[in-house]
């Protein structure tokens, strides 16, 4: 995430971005049953794959709709709020169950996560570090808290996943929270140090 991702994404051509979107989208499409057959794979592999597909689509759309997106995404706030609420929603056990039992809810999940990925990419490019810190910190805290709840809940939370899968998903979510926060810190460190040196 953050500056490094932005720097990398600038180097990607639209064609490469399309390839990444196609790869991530195809992976989800082809491996859907396997990914969604386990709670941890569903949340910690499929969700990021959809965000990645969205970020790549966002790169493609940037040239055409960049100005329009920017006009509604001051300081990256719209993208961050949309992605935070989307991720929070799909961490509700009832929502996760609904996405497995209802095709419309499944479609809503795919679309909302892909749009989140596209908006997140746009937001990380324009948001000041303080805004990024707030949302990355919020995401990490929320994900770790949900992970801990999944690990300690005495009962089965999702009807479609057993308690063993729930425990593994909880551990994976905590790991994802830590990795996301660390990745962001490492990626923004150069920019942070640079701004410190300027001051």
């Amino acid at each position, binding site marked *: 995430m953050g500056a490094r991702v932005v720097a990398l994404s600038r180097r990607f051509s639209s064609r490469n971005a399309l390839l990444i979107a196609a790869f991530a989208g195809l992976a989800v499409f082809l491996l859907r049953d396997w990914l969604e057959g386990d709670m941890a794979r569903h949340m910690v592999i499929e969700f990021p794959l959809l965000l990645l597909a969205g970020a790549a689509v966002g790169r493609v759309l940037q040239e055409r709709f960049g100005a329009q997106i920017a006009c*509604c*995404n*001051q300081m990256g706030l719209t993208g961050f709020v949309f992605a935070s609420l989307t991720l929070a*929603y799909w961490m*509700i056990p*009832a929502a996760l169950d609904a996405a497995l039992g209802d095709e419309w809810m499944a479609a809503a999940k795919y679309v909302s996560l892909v749009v989140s990925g596209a908006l997140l990419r746009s937001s990380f490019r324009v948001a000041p570090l303080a805004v990024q810190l707030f949302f990355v910190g919020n995401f990490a805290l929320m994900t770790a808290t949900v992970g801990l709840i999944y690990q300690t809940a005495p009962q*089965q939370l999702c009807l479609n996943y057993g308690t063993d899968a729930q425990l593994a998903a909880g551990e994976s979510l905590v790991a994802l929270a830590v990795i996301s926060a660390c990745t962001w810190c490492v990626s923004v460190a150069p920019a942070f140090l640079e701004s410190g040196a300027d001051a």
Partner: protein
Amino acid sequence: MPRVARASWMGTGISLVAIIGFAAAAIWSITFGLRGLTTEDIRRLRVQSEPPVLGSLQLTSSNGASFRPWGAPQGSRRVWLVTFMYTRCPTLCTALGIEFERLQRALGQDPRDDHVRLLSISFDPAHDDTGALQAYAAEHHADPARWIVAVPSGASALAKLEREAGIVVIKDGLGGYAHNAAIHVVLDDGRLVRIFAFDNPQAALTWARAL
């Protein structure tokens, strides 16, 4: 502030209001008005406010008889306390069996409970034939006059019942199943009016007694 920047903040503000409003509505809807986070919690709350009607169901009982527990043209006061199970289950269904055994004893002690019947429905027809059902009934001393152990006659009947009642059965990876275990109160017309925790049969009985 320059006009372009002001317009841009206005666009951001409108987008944020729309996103937060939509998200609030979506969260309100999926949590049944912020009253539950899990599908099982919400299933129990939902039947209280909008009791679903279970369709007519053909069952085969442990003594091989075919019958329809509810949906009869002539309504009666009969109330079914229904659980879903599979006879090989070493954990929850055994606990459910023990709870039903206790309930059966309690039912026998009070003539006001004549209208209450216990019904254990297996969702594992591939294994739970009449012999397996009989063994389960014998193990828990089920009295056929009060407690019927049965399996739906046909896979489509089972799928329909699971869909209507909101039962989800998944493989546990050890050759068995995980499922939502609870005591369902079903009236003679097929209305599923309450769902109680499987370890609180007394509450289910108290409620059924009052019907």
